[in-house]
C-alpha cells in the first residue's frame, strides 16, 4: 500500500506492506536512519520521533496509521543546518556516548521544552523515563536538557559555531 507522511516538513511516500512498522518505514523506506530500534517491546525508546509534535515510540505504530500525519525525526531538528539547542546541549554536556539513544532523547527533550521551557531536574527525568540510555547514567542528559533550557534560541546562534571542538 502507498503511505504518505509529512516528515521533517517534506511530503514523502512509499509503497509498503500493510504490516510495516512506522520505525521500519522511516528507516528502511525513507532512509532516515537517525531513528533507531533497540527492542521488540516498546521499552527502550530508541525509536522515538515527534508525531504531530508529541513524542511517540515509532515501533508501536504501523506506517499505515501514520499516513497523513506530521513526523519529526532527528534529521529534522537542525533547522536550516543550525543545531537545535537540545542538540548543542548534548554536545556541551557530554550527553551521549554511543549516540544510539540520542535521537530519541533529543526529540523527547524538544517536546518537553516546547511544553515547559524551564523544567526541573525531576521533570526532565520524568520526561525521559520511558527511554533507556545504557551509557551516560542520565546525569549528563539531564544537564544537557537544562543547558538547552538556559540557552533558548536567541543566544544559541553564537554557541553553535563552536561545534566539534
Amino acid at each position: 500500500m502507498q503511505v504518505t507522511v509529512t516528515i521533517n516538513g517534506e511530503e514523502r511516500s512509499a509503497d509498503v506492506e500493510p504490516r510495516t512498522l512506522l520505525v521500519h518505514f522511516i528507516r528502511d523506506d525513507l532512509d532516515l536512519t537517525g531513528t533507531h530500534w533497540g527492542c521488540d517491546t516498546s521499552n527502550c525508546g530508541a525509536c522515538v520521533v515527534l508525531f504531530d509534535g508529541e513524542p511517540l515510540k515509532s515501533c508501536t505504530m504501523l506506517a499505515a496509521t501514520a499516513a497523513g500525519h506530521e513526523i519529526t525525526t532527528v534529521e529534522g531538528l537542525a533547522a536550516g543546518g543550525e543545531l537545535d539547542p537540545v542538540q548543542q546541549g548534548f554536545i556541551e554536556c557530554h550527553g551521549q556516548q554511543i549516540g544510539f539513544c540520542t535521537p530519541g532523547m533529543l526529540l523527547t527533550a524538544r517536546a518537553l521544552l516546547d511544553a515547559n521551557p524551564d523544567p526541573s531536574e525531576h521533570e526532565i527525568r520524568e520526561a525521559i523515563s520511558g527511554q533507556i540510555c545504557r551509557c551516560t547514567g542520565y546525569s549528563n542528559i539531564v544537564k544537557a536538557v537544562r543547558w538547552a533550557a538556559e540557552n533558548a534560541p536567541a543566544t544559541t546562534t553564537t554557541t553553535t559555531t563552536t561545534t566539534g571542538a
Partner: protein
Amino acid sequence: MSTVQPSPTVGYGSMRRKEDPRFVRGQGRYIDDLKLPGMLHGAVLRSPLAHARIISIDTAAAAAHPKVKAVITGADLAGLGLAWMPTMSQDTQAVLATDKVRFQGQEVAFVVAEDRYSARDALELIDVEYEELPVVIDARKALDADAPIIRDDKEGQTSNHIFDWEAGDSEETDRVFAAADVVVARDIIYPRCHPAPLETCGAVAQMDPVMGKLTLWTTTQAPHAHRTVYALVAGLPEHKIRIIPGDIGGGFGNKVPVYPGYVCAIVGSILTGKPVKWMEDRSENLLSTGFARDYIMHGEIAATSDGTITGLRVTTTADHGAFNATAQPTKYPAGFFHIFSGSYDLQAAHCKVTGVYTNKAPGGVAYRCSFRVTEAVYLVERMVDALALELKLDPAQLRLKNFIRPEQFPYQCKTGWTYDSGEYERAMRLAMEIAGYDDLRREQAEKRARGELMGIGIAFFTETVGAGPRKDMDILGLAMNDGADLRVHPTGKAVLGISAMSQGQGHETTFAQIVSEELGIPSADIEVVNGDTDRTPYGLGTYGSRSTPVSGAATALVARKVRERARLIAAGMLEASPDDLEWERGRWFVKGDPEQGSTIQEIAMAAHGAGDLPEGVEGMLEDTCVYNPPNLTFPFGAYICVVDIDPGTAKVVVRRFVAVDDCGVRINPMIVEGQIHGGLAEGVGIALMELIAFDEQGNCLGGSFMDYLIPTALEVPEWELGATVTPSPHHPIGAKGVGESPTVGSPPAIVNAIIDALHDSHGVDHIDMPCTPGRVWDAMQGRAEPPQ
C-alpha cells in the same frame, strides 16, 4: 563537573567530543543503517528447547517461499566444515546445531530472503522435530552423577566438568585460618546478567566473488581478532577479509565474541553472491549472546579479634553455559578472579574455581569488567562487610585498618599480582568527606529510632586491567598487544590509526588528545581512525579497560617516536646537533637560544619537502609502534552509597552515590566522568534489577526488556564524583583505564548499604542480587532465597 569547559586546543583536559556532531544529527553509522544494492536479509531459527536431540529438519516449505533465496542448516554447514567454530576459550561452539540443541535460543537454521519481514516469515515454515532431553540448569547439580551430559559431542567428555583452577597457597591459607580469632563465611552469588547494549548484534557480509574479498560490517569490539578467527574458521585468506565496525551502539563486553549469526551472514553472502544483513532482535540478544557473571561462591574471611584481616579463601562454581565461550586470556580460565584479595594486606589467600557446562546460553563475557574482576571485588567487599558485622566494627574503619599502605607498592599480592601503585587511604577519606560519612551515620541513627530504613554501604575496589603482557597472556594464541600508526602530513595535520575500537568511549577525541599532548599539534588537526582492519594496525580491541592502558600507551609512544624523528629533521633545519635541541610542546629549539626553533608543522613540511635531510634521516614524518605492556594497571576507588528502603514495600531507592576513582592520569576528565556515570548506572541495574533467570525446563525468564530490567533516569541518583590521581609508574602517560571501575565497585556498595539498612531491624546479614522489592521483602521476613 562534566558540563561545558573551555576546550583546550592542545593536550589534555575536558573538551567537546569529536564524535558528537554526527551523533546529535542522527548521522552515526551503525550496522543496521547500512543499505547496499541488492542486499538480502537473514534471520536465525532458534531452538525453543534447552536440551533436545534434533531428529529432523524440514526446510522445503521455507525454501519454496517466493522471497527466500537460501535456507541453511547445520548439515549444510557441516558440508563446508563450518558447523562448529572455535570459542575464545579453546572450546567449540555450534554455528548451527547438527546433533542436539543445548540451550534455549540456540541457532538451528538460517534463512536469507529479500526483506527482513519475509526472512522472519520463512522461519515459521521450517519444521524441526526434537526429542526432548533432561536439562541441567542449576550449576550446583551439573556434576551430579546422574546429570545428563551436555557436551557428548566432545570426545572424552564424560561429565559437565570444564576446568578446575586455583590461585594462592592453600596450605598457608589453611594455616592462617587455623590461627585466626574469627572466621566468617558467606554463600554469595553473582547472578547471571547481560550487558544488553542498546544496539543489538548484527552484520552485513559482502563477498566479492571476483576479487575474492569479504567485507564484513559488524558489531565487534575486537575487529582484528575477529578477522583472524574468520581466517582460521573459514579458511579465507586473512588479507582478503576486511572488518568494518562503523559506530557501535554499545558493547560492554557483549560484542567481543564471534556469534553464529555473523558466520551465517558470511555463508549466506557466499551462497547468494549478494550482500546479506543479519540483525538480531532484542530477545535474540538476551537469549543467545554473551551473558556475564554466574558465579556461585563460598567465601571465608579470617581475622584477629581487633579486626586485622589475615586471610581469605573462596571456592566457586562457575556456570559457563552450553559452550565454554568465555572471553579471557588463555592461561586464566577464571579470568582475573584471583585479584579477589582486593585492596588489603593479607597473610594468605586462596581461591578455587570449577567451571561447568549447563543448558544455558554460552558466554561469560566481561560485562563492563576486566575478566572476572567484578566477581572478585564483589566477593571481597561483601566479605569485609560480613566481618565488620561480626566484629561490630565500622566498615569504613575496618577497611582503613587493613589497606595496603602507599609505601608497600609495588605490592606483591598473595595470588600473584604485582599492584603498580595506590594511595587507598587518601581515596577512602575523600569519599567519606564528600559523603559526609559521620553525619550520615548520625542521620541513620535518628532514622532508625523512628523505624525508618536507611543504609550506608561502602566498597573499595582494586582492579587489574589493561591486558596484557605477552609473557603472561594471550587470546587464541594472539598476544594482547596493540599497535598505533601515526602519520603527520606535510601541512602538520595528522592521522592516527589505532587497534582499539570505540563503543562510545570517545577514542576519536581522547586519542587525538594524547598525540596532541606529545606533539603539540591541536587536537582538531588530528584524525583518529579505529575499527576498519584495512586502515588500522593489528591489536586485540577494546574490552577489559584496555584501550588507554594498551592502545593509549602505543599512541603516546608512537608520537614520541615521531617527535624524535622531528628532532633530527629540526637539527638539519636549525644547523644544530640533535643533542643541542630542547623540546617544548609543539616545537624543537636550540638550547639556550629559544628564538632559534622549528614548530612541528614547519618540521612536517621540511620532512616532506624537496630540500636535503640530515644524513641517514628518512623522509616524511610518520612511524608505527606496538606496545607490549610490562604489567597490568591497577585502578582503584572508594564508593559510598546511601539507600532508603520502604518498610512497607521493600523498594530500595539509591538516594546518594559517591564515587572517588583513581584511574591515574586523566586525559579528558569530562569523558572519564561520563564513563563513571554510565558504569554506576549499570551497577545500580545489576544490584537492583538485572537478572537472566531460568525455569526448571531451561526457559529463559529474562528474554526481553519487559523482563530484563534496565534502570531509567528515575532509578538512579545524581552522581557525586571525586578524583585522586596516582599515576601508573610503568605506563608512558601514567594512565590506568577507567571504563569498568564503576560497574566493578558499585554493586557491593549498594548491597552493603541494603544489608546495613536491614541488619539491626530485621537481622539481615546477607542478600543476593538483584535486590528487587520481592527479594528484599523476603529477606526482611527471614526467608531470603538465592536468585537461581
